[in-house]
C-alpha cells in the first residue's frame, strides 16, 4: 500500500529538480536545433534551401539578394544547413522567442544597394 511513501518523502527532503526558467537559463547541448540564421555576406542566394525546405519556410529573392525565413513555418529539420553549398546557413541552439505577431527573419546583402547605385 505504501510503496510511494519512500519516493514522496525522499522528494520532500531533497532539492526540487526544477530548472528555474526564466531566472536561470539552462545551457543547451551543442548542436541543438533552435533557430536558423543565414550570413548574408557569405550567402550566394542560390535558392537551394528554398527548393529543399519541406515546409516552404525559406524564400530567396535572387534578384534583390534577400533571404527570408518564416520561423513560424520552419520545422527546424536542418536540411537547409545541410545542403547549403557555401555553408552560410547556421543552426543556433537558442530557440526563437515567442512573439505577438508572426515576424519574418530577413537577411539582406548590405553592399547590394551600393553596387546597384554604382552601376
Amino acid at each position, binding site marked *: 500500500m*505504501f*510503496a*510511494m*511513501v519512500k519516493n*514522496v*518523502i525522499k*522528494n*520532500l527532503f*531533497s532539492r*526540487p*529538480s*526544477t530548472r*528555474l526558467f526564466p531566472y536561470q537559463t539552462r545551457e543547451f547541448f551543442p548542436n541543438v536545433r533552435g533557430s536558423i540564421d543565414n550570413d548574408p555576406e557569405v550567402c550566394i542566394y542560390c535558392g537551394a534551401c528554398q527548393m529543399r525546405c519541406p515546409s516552404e519556410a525559406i524564400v530567396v529573392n535572387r534578384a534583390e539578394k534577400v533571404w527570408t525565413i518564416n520561423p513560424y513555418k520552419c520545422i527546424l529539420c536542418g536540411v537547409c544547413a545541410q545542403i547549403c553549398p557555401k555553408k552560410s546557413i547556421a543552426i543556433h541552439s537558442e530557440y526563437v522567442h515567442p512573439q505577438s505577431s508572426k515576424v519574418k527573419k530577413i537577411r539582406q546583402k548590405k553592399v547590394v544597394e551600393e553596387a546597384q547605385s554604382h552601376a
Partner: protein
Amino acid sequence: MNIQIIAATILLAPVIGGLIAGIDRIITARMQHRVGPPLLQPFYDVLKLLGKENIAVTNDQSLYAVLYLVFNVITLVMFVLQMDLLLILFMLLLAVASLVLGAMSANSPFSKIGAQRELIAILAYEPILISSVVGMYFVTGSFSISRILQIDRMLFIDLPLLFIAFTYVLTIKLRKSPFDFSTSHHGHQELVKGLTIEYSGPSLAMIEIAHWYETVLLLLFAGLFFANNLYVAVAAIAICYFAEILVDNIAARLTWQIMLKSTWIPGLLIAVVNMVWVYIKYHV
C-alpha cells in the same frame, strides 16, 4: 463580545484557510520534486476569479454558490460560538446540499454525475461524523461544544478509534485523493472538475472561499479531540493535515464503491466499538 468573535471568525477564517491551502500546495509540489507556487497563490487565484466574467448556465446556479458559502460561514460561526455539535453537522450538510443542488441545476452530465457522487460521499462520511459527535456525547454528556471544552480530559484518550475514523472521512471531506472523485483539486479526472465544472469567475471564487471555511471548520473539529491542551491540539491538527497531504500523494483515486465499503464496514465498525466502549465506561 459575540459580535466581535463573529466578525473575527468571518474575517480570519478565510485567511487561515487560504494559507493552509497555500502550504498544502507547496508541500504537495515538494513531494513531487517541484518548486511549487508561492504561498499566497490561493489568494491570487480567488482574487483573479472575482475579477472575471461570470458565466452562469442557469439562473439559480450563482445563488447556490452563495448559499454554499453562507452555510459554511454560519457553520463555522456556530462552531466558534461553541454551539450544539449536532446542529453544526446539520448546517454543514445544508452547505453541501446547496453545492449538490447547484451542480444538479446545471444541465451538464459531468456536473450531474459529480453531484451524484457527492451524494454518495455524504452517505459515506455522515455516519462517521455523527458517531464521533455521539461518542463525544457519551464522554461529556453534552452535544454542546462549550460543555465539551469544560471537560479537563483529553477526548482522544477515550475516543482514539473514532478519531482514526474521523481522519479517514476527513480525506473525503477535504476532497483529497483517494476519494476525490466528485471534484478534485486538479482537473485531470474523468469528470474534469465534476461538481464545479459549470461554475466560473466569481461563483467559483465563492466556492473556493467556502472550501477554506470548511477546511478550518474540519480542522477545528479534529482539534476538538485534543481540546484541553492547546499545543497538543495544534500539533495534532498539523500532523493530521500533513497525513492528509501525504495520503493524497501516495494513493490513486478509488471508486465510490470501495469508498462506501471501506467507510461503512471497517470505519463504522471501529466507530461503534469505540462508542460502545465509552458508553460502558461512563454510563454502565
